[in-house]
């Protein structure tokens, strides 16, 4: 059974029809990527999954449970972490407090500390800036913080919206390594990336989305080789 399943989802922003009957599946243990050009509806898809925008039609299931109408924090409690587009870190909280918020669901201090340790391992820069206010960090540093905060949740499925944006090349590589590592450890991943090349290389399967509709879905390898895809997204 699919871990996460969207069935014929329609989402609107006021009068704008952003998702037009979108259906995707993510199986446990998979890395699935969603690619598409600007404004295709990638971010909207992730936002709809975690209830930040509502599907007006269609259903969303997580581990067999209908989550379409659940509230965001309840959805998150099921083990769905979302690292949103544009970082969205808490600007007036310190790095440490931002990370703590990532593990809000747990009371276990041990878990929190371990999580923070791990985040610092991935991103030593964060450790250097442990008590800096999130809002004064550089763009890339904020991106690291946002990803680290997402990891704090120890989610069953991690949804990343353009995690490589604004990161130095060396860190982009690292992000993909982290994705692979997390996946090896059993985390399912739904990845939205502009860097389709790398995304497809890291993923098992991929969906191509265009103006709110899935126009292609296949193995990542196949998609990577697909001339149409190369033409449209890889240049």
């Amino acid at each position, binding site marked *: 059974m699919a871990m996460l399943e969207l069935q014929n989802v329609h989402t609107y922003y006021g009068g*704008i029809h952003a998702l037009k009957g979108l259906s995707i599946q993510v199986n446990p243990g998979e890395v699935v990527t969603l690619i598409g050009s*600007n404004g295709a509806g990638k971010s909207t898809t992730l936002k709809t999954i975690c209830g930040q925008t509502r599907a007006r039609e269609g259903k969303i299931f997580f581990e067999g449970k209908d989550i379409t109408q659940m509230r965001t924090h309840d959805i998150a409690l099921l083990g769905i972490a979302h690292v949103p587009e544009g970082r969205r870190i808490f600007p007036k909280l310190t790095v440490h407090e931002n990370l703590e918020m990532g593990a809000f669901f747990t009371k276990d201090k041990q878990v929190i500390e371990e999580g923070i340790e791990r985040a610092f391992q991935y991103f030593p820069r964060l450790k250097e800036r442990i008590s800096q206010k999130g809002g*004064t960090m*550089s*763009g*890339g540093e904020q991106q690291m913080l946002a990803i680290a905060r997402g990891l704090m949740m120890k989610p069953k499925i991690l949804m990343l919206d353009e995690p490589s944006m*604004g990161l130095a090349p060396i860190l982009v590589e690292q992000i993909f390594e982290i994705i692979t590592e997390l996946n090896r450890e059993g985390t399912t991943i739904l990845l939205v990336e502009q860097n389709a090349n790398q995304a497809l290389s890291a993923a098992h399967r991929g969906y191509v989305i265009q103006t709110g509709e899935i126009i292609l879905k296949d193995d990542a390898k196949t998609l990577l080789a697909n001339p149409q895809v190369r033409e449209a997204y890889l*240049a």
Partner: protein
Amino acid sequence: MALLEAVGLTKKFGGLVANQDVTLKIDKGSITAVIGPNGAGKTTFFNMITGFYEPNEGEILLNGKSIKGLRPDQIASRGITRTFQNIRLFKQMTALENVMVGVHSRLSAGIMGILFNTKRVREEEEKARVEAYQLMEYVGIAHIANEAAGSLPYGLQRRLEIARALATNPQIILLDEPAAGMNPRETVEMTEFIRLLKKELDLTIILIEHDMKLVMGLSEYIHVLDYGRKIAEGSPEQIRNNPSVIEAYLGKSASEVS
């Protein structure tokens, strides 16, 4: 003489030195890239040039004249404009109006003129509108002229920001990660576009970007910052092969970039 010159710029945030003794020269009509790891101080450098931060030390010269200590709006009216790493559009305004705001400092209507809607003001307004629209056409987003800026997808917002910046009629434009959030194909388009800007509009361009394809393909000269210091400068070729740059910033994959 260099068009823009930064001499020994230093910026500290408490104990943190975000820029230390950064000196660089920008020639008229050039495309210069500022690159470096995250948190190296690139955006901070832009912020000092455009008057958002006042440097603790150092001097900024435009055509040999100091512009240090001027407010951002004063600097803008001296012909230096920018885009932002985190897009900052006027979300509730339409795209066209956003661009028209850019024309602001070149308009002269005063309160009385507006009140009495004089012929001069009417003409000026219409001109501004036409100019803004032409700019949007030029940037390729004329079709969204009447949409609210806040509801546009990311990529279009970036272009709109550039159009808005161009509307101030700058001589120098500072682009902070213009291709962030764009897919490779769109990045190529952006590269072409920036090149065009320089060629057709006679602009001097300084840009920050982490996409090495864009940086290497576009820039004539590159400055590398790390921990607030300048660690290297040179042509793309020189930078690509600079071992300290590779180590601090590029990583192995960068050498694959053509």
